[in-house]
C-alpha cells in the first residue's frame, strides 16, 4: 500500500517539486550573481507557455521519442520509489537517455547532432559510477532492493562515502550543471545553440523539461537512500541533506566554467575509479 502511495506521489509530485526546485535554482543562481532573478514559479509559467505554443517540428519522430523519454524516466523513478531493484532502475534510466539521444539525432541537424554526441559521452562518463553505486549498496546491505536498503539499522553512507562523493559529481552531469553541461544547458551561454534540444519547440520541449524534473527528483531520491535507515528521523536528515546536495550543485554550477567533453569524460572516470573503485575494494575486503 505504501508502495502504491509513494509511486503515485512520485508520478504526480515529481514534476511539481522538480519545477519548484528548478525555480529555486534559478532564483538562488540569480542572487549569487547579484541579480534579482525570475519569480519562484517561473518554470511553471514556462511550461504553460510552451504547451500553448504552436507545434513546430522538423520530423514526425521527435515528439514520439521525447514522450518515450518522459515515460521511461517516470518508470525508472517509480521503480526507485516503489522500493524495487535499484540496478534495474538505473538500467531503465539509461534506456530513457537513449531515447533522448535518438530524439536529438533524428533531426539530422548539425547542432542537435553535436548535442547528441556530447550526451552520449556524458552517459558513458556517468554509467560506471551508477553501476558501482548499485554494487556498493549490494555489498553494504546485501540487497539491490531499495526497500531493503532503506531498512538497515545504519545508513549506507557510513560504508560508502566515496561512492556518495562520486555520485555527487555524476549528479552534476545528469542535472546538466556546469562544469558538465556540454550537451545542452539551461543557461544563456550555450554556445552551440541549444545542443540536443535545438529543434525541440513548444510542447515537445515542455515534455523534455518535465522529464528533466522527474530526473531531478530521481537523482535526489538516490541521494536520499544513501542516508535513510530504519529510524524515522533519518528521513528528515535525508530530506535536509538532499536540499543541501541540490544547493551545492547550484553553487558548483555558478562558480565553474564549462569543461570540454574530454575533460568531462576523463574527470568522471577518474573520480569513478578512485572514489568508487577504492570504496568497492574496501567494502569487498571487509566483507
Amino acid at each position: 500500500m505504501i508502495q502504491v502511495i509513494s509511486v503515485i506521489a512520485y508520478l504526480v509530485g515529481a514534476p511539481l517539486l522538480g519545477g519548484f526546485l528548478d525555480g529555486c535554482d534559478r532564483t538562488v543562481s540569480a542572487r549569487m550573481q547579484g541579480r534579482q532573478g525570475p519569480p519562484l514559479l517561473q518554470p511553471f509559467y514556462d511550461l504553460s507557455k510552451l504547451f500553448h505554443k504552436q507545434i513546430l517540428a522538423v520530423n514526425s519522430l521527435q515528439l514520439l521519442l521525447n514522450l518515450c523519454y518522459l515515460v521511461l524516466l517516470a518508470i525508472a523513478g517509480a521503480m526507485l520509489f516503489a522500493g524495487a531493484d535499484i540496478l534495474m532502475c538505473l538500467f531503465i534510466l539509461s534506456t530513457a537517455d537513449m531515447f533522448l539521444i535518438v530524439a536529438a539525432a533524428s533531426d539530422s541537424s548539425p547542432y542537435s547532432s553535436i548535442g547528441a554526441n556530447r550526451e552520449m559521452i556524458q552517459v558513458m562518463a556517468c554509467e560506471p559510477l551508477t553501476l558501482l553505486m548499485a554494487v556498493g549498496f549490494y555489498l553494504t546491505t546485501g540487497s539491490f532492493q531499495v526497500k531493503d536498503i532503506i531498512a538497515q539499522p545504519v545508513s549506507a553512507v557510513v560504508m560508502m562515502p566515496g561512492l556518495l562523493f562520486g555520485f555527487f559529481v555524476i549528479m552534476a552531469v545528469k542535472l546538466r550543471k556546469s562544469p558538465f553541461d556540454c550537451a545542452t544547458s539551461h543557461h544563456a551561454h550555450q554556445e552551440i545553440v541549444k545542443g540536443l534540444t535545438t529543434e525541440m519547440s513548444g510542447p515537445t520541449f515542455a515534455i523534455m523539461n518535465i522529464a528533466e524534473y522527474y530526473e531531478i527528483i530521481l537523482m535526489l531520491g538516490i541521494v536520499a537512500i544513501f542516508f535513510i535507515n530504519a529510524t524515522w528521523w533519518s528521513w528528515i536528515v535525508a530530506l535536509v541533506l538532499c536540499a543541501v546536495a541540490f544547493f551545492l550543485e547550484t553553487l558548483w554550477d555558478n562558480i565553474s566554467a564549462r569543461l570540454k567533453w574530454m575533460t568531462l569524460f576523463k574527470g568522471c572516470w577518474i573520480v569513478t575509479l578512485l572514489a568508487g573503485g577504492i570504496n568497492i575494494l574496501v567494502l569487498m575486503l571487509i566483507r
Partner: protein
Amino acid sequence: MGILPILIVWPMILAIILPFLKARRARGILAYIGAGSLMVLAVVFLLGWLFNGGQTQALYVETEAIDHLMTVGELFLMVLIVVLSIRHRKYPVILLSVGQTLLLLWTEFTMPVEGGAHMLVDGLSMLMCAIVAIIGGFICIYAVGYMKTYHEHHKEYKDRSGFFFSMLFLFLGAMMGLVFSQNLVWLYFFWEITSVVSFLLIGYTRTEEAVHNSFRALWMNLLGGFGFAIAIPLVSSTLHSLQLADVVASGSVLPIALLAFAGLTKSAQLPFSSWLLGAMVAPTPSSALLHSATMVKAGVYLLIRLSPGMHDTMAGILVSLIGGFTFIAASMMAIAQTDAKKVLAFSTVSNLGLIVACAGIGVEETIWAAVLLMIFHAISKSMLFQAVGAVENSIGSRNIERMHGLILRLPKLTYIMGIGIAGMYLAPFGMLISKWVALRSFVDADNVLLVLFLAFGSATTMLYWTKWLTKIISQHKPKEIEKDVTLRDQYLSMGVHAVLMLLLCFLFPIVARYAVDPIINEIFGNVEEVLSMNELTTMAIMLVSVLLIPAIMFLVTRSAKRSYVPIYMSGANMGDNTYFVNSYGEPEHLYLTNWYLRFQFGMRKLMRPCEMIAMAAIVIFICVIIGGAVA
C-alpha cells in the same frame, strides 16, 4: 538416438555433393533442402529427447572403426595444412600442425585408456545443437541469396560459391559433432575441422589481405589446438581416461588450463582477438555463421563445460580475468570503428569476453548468465551480420557513416538492424538481464577487477551501439533513391531471427526456467534460484512496457497537428535540410558524422598494449600453474 549420427553426417555428405553442382539454381535448392532438413532433424531430435524425459545419455562406447577413420581425417587435415602452408610460404604453421597431430597419434597408439562413452547428450549440448541447426540453417538459406548478389557486385573475385556452401555445411556437421563429443580425441578432431574450415572461408576471396588474415586465424587456432593436444596425453597418462567429464571432475589444474587456453583462442579472447577481426574480409554469411553466432561459441562451450573444474582455481582466475579484460578492451576499440562489420567483430569479442569471464568464475549464477548471454548473442549477432550484409549489397558500403538516414532509404532492413542493436544492449532485453546477473555474481565472487571491468565496459558498449542507432534512425532525406536488392530468402532468414529475438524476450521467464535452469542443474547437480519468478515477471512486464510505450506514443502523437519547418542551420538552409549557403554564397552539402574518438580509443593505440597485458597474464599464470603441477 538414431538421429544423432545423421545430424553430423548429413551436412558432411551435402558438403561433398555441393561443389560438384555447377548450376547456381540447383545449388541453391540443395542448400535450402539441406538447411531445412537439418533444422527439422534437430527439432525432431530435440523433441524426441525432451519427450523421453530429457535425460543425460552417454553413447557410443565401442567405436574402433570410427576412431581409425578420424585418425585418417586428422592426417588429411595435417597434409592439407602443410600443402597450403608451403604454397603460401607460411612455414611456422607447419610445425604447429605436424607437431600436434604427431603428439595426438603418439598418445593414441601408446597410451591405453579405459573405454567410455564417446558422445554425450545433455541439456547444454542440445541447446548448442539447436542454436547451430536453427541459426546456422537460416544463415545458409540467407547465403544463397547473398552470394548471388555478392558476386554481381564483386566481379573481381572468382565465384567459388560451390566451395563456399560446401564449407558452410561441413562446418555445421563438425559443430554438431563438437557439441556432442565427450571423448577428448573426438572433440579435438571436430575442433580442428572448425579451425580449418574457418581458415578456408576467410581466404575465400584469395586476395593478399584475405590470405594473410586466414593464416593468422589458422596459426592462432592451431596454437590453441596445440594446447588441446598437449592436454590429451597429460590426461590419459594421469587419469587413464579421455572423458571430458572426468577431467572436470578430477579438478587437475594443468589439463584444465590447457583446454581453457584452447577455448580462449577459439573464442578470440585477447591476445588472440586479431584473427577474428581479420576474419571480417570473408563474405558476410561466413562472418555471421563462424565468427559470431556459432564457431566462436565452440570455445565458449568448452569453457562452460570446464567451468565447474575452474571454480576457485588458478585456471579459473586466469580465464575470468582474460575474459573481463577482453570485454572492456574490445568494447573500447569498437568505439573507434566506422566499418559496421568491424564494430560487430569487436562487439562479438567483447561479449564473448563477458561469457568467458562468467565461465571462469564457475558458479551456478555465472553459468546461468553465460548460457543466456550465449543464446541472445547468437541470435542478435547473426541477425545484425545479415542485416549489414544486406545493406552492403544495397548501398555498396558497410561504413556506418554511409548508413546515415537509412530508415528513409531501406526501412525494412533498418527495422531489423534496430531490433538487433536494441537486443544487444537496451534494458530490458535479454543481454542486459544477463549482464545484471553477471554483475551480481562477480560481486558475490568478491572479484573487484571484474566488477570494474563490467561497469566500465558496459558504458563503452553503450556508446558504440547508440552511435550506430542514431545514425540509422536519423531523418535525413536521401540524395538518390537506392534500390533494396535484398532477396526474399534473405528476408526470410532475417525475419525469423527478428521474430525469434522478440519471442525470446517476451518468453524470457519461461526460457530461463525451462531451458537454462535444467542445464545448470546438469552441470552443478543443483540449481540455486538465480532470479526469482517474481523478478522475472517484473522484467517481463517492463519489457512489454518498453516495447509498448513507443507504440502507444506513436498512436498518441500521430494525431498531433504539426507544422514542419526546416532544421536549424543558423538560417542558412538552402530550401531543404541537405544544403546550406557557405561563405562564398554557394550551396554546400550538409555532412554529419558521428564521433569515433579515434585518437583516444583507436585500435592502433590500444590493440598492442592490450595484447601485451593479456599475453603477460597468460604466460605468468601458465608458468605458475605448471610450477604448481610439477612441484
